[in-house]
């Protein structure tokens, strides 16, 4: 499995097949039991700081306000001063994520979806060159989700960032990705690799095109084959 720089890949597969684990291996958080991960020609042995990762849980820190949580990666990389300077940027990200006005709120006052959005903002704030996303939009309503998807595409294209997304939504995978990896159920293997050759930038109205429908169907069929019951 090779991710080209600037490419957008998705992984789709049944629950428990090892997608989160795969992501953790790619981030260098968990040692792989076999095989190796290479990033920009060098093997990944430990975590690297140009990776932005979002876990399935939001993992916000309760003692920091939302905006402080968001600038945390900056604070870690460049110190307090840089973090203070990044407040504007963080506020812009919050606006984008529909969290305007929640800057100084503590995370325990956020709803599930809001926490997830805040976690996305935190990942984006440091402009990482590789994004690893574990079901970032699962707790969002469709509308917000579509909007966030388009934002994500814009951000990745702007920065030529490499993204790797775990999702359960086939349309989401198709609209965002260059390649979709379908995983078979436990033990998870990559069952099929589907190249998505829709033109970039993608727009939401592509969803209604027949080509899009065909791709979705193809992936769904693939997943049905390995169905768990």
């Amino acid at each position, binding site marked *: 499995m090779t991710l080209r720089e600037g490419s957008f890949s998705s992984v789709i597969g049944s629950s428990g097949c090892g997608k989160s684990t795969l992501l*953790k291996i790619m*981030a*260098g*958080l968990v040692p792989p039991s076999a095989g190796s991960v290479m990033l920009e020609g060098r093997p990944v042995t*430990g*975590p*690297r*700081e*140009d*990776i*932005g*990762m979002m*876990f399935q*849980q939001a*993992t916000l*820190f*309760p*003692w920091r306000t939302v905006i402080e949580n968001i600038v*945390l*990666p900056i*604070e*870690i*990389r460049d110190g307090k001063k840089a973090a203070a300077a990044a407040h504007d940027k963080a506020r812009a990200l919050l606006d984008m994520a529909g969290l305007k006005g929640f800057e100084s709120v*503590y995370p*325990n006052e956020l709803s599930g979806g809001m926490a997830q959005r805040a976690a996305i903002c935190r990942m984006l704030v*440091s402009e990482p060159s590789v994004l*690893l996303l574990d079901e970032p939009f699962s707790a969002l309503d469709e509308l917000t989700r579509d909007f966030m998807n388009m934002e994500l595409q814009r951000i990745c294209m702007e920065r030529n960032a490499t993204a790797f997304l775990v999702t359960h939504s086939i349309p989401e995978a198709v609209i965002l990705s260059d390649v979709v990896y379908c995983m078979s159920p436990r033990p998870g293997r990559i069952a099929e690799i589907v190249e998505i050759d829709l033109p970039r930038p993608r727009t939401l109205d592509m969803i209604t095109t027949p080509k899009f429908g065909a791709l979705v169907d193809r992936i769904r069929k693939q997943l049905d084959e390995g169905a768990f019951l």
Partner: protein
Amino acid sequence: MATIFIVFVGIWYATHISGLVSPIILPSPMDTAEEILFVGNNLLTGGYMLGPLWMTLKEVFYAFILATALGFSLGVLVGETTFGERAVMPYLVAIDTMPKVAFAPLFIAWLGFGIESKVALATFIATFPIIVGTAAGLHAADENARMLFKTMGATRWQTLVKMKLPTGMPHFFTGLKIGSVGVMAGAITGEFLGGGKGFGELIRVASTNLDTARVFALIIYLSLIGLAIFMTVVWAQRRFVFWQKSSVMGDH
């Protein structure tokens, strides 16, 4: 609280008038109350007890600061490093098990009969709970938070300061609460063991004179101070660990 107090004094009074316990062991509540007034009066009018009180307060204050600093540092060493956990912790436990009394001569030999040796002993007693609390706190962070910090490329130091320590605050405060109470006991023990012109000595003198009511009165004043220190820690916890429900109230 008042009820408990009344019940408590009631039992005390009943024990007293039953005549089962000699007044040199358990004085009557009235005698004790009288002595409390006497001591209070002495303190308020700037009598001879004010100096000792001030001395003990100083000891407690310095020892608490020292114990917090020391306990925190050692707690981080023990909780954060394998070296600390494996190599240092057994020594700390072993030292803490030792009767502190045995160290009094050493402290006095090195630090003299002044306030220093008492501060050292009180610090010694209060440090261990803070070490254990801090170390336990460092283990409290969950897997996801750890991984998140790794992906952010946080140094070990940053992970410690920005994640593990705040996460461990409730544990740290548990240790601090226990230590805050120990520091008072430690100062008095120190004064008992040698030198020191603090409240401990007043208690000693009263005790040798079999003036048990006075002993009780002095001890009650100490308790109030201890309570105040403890409450300060509780207040600090409410203030700094605001995200955790630290009270029973509003719970049911």
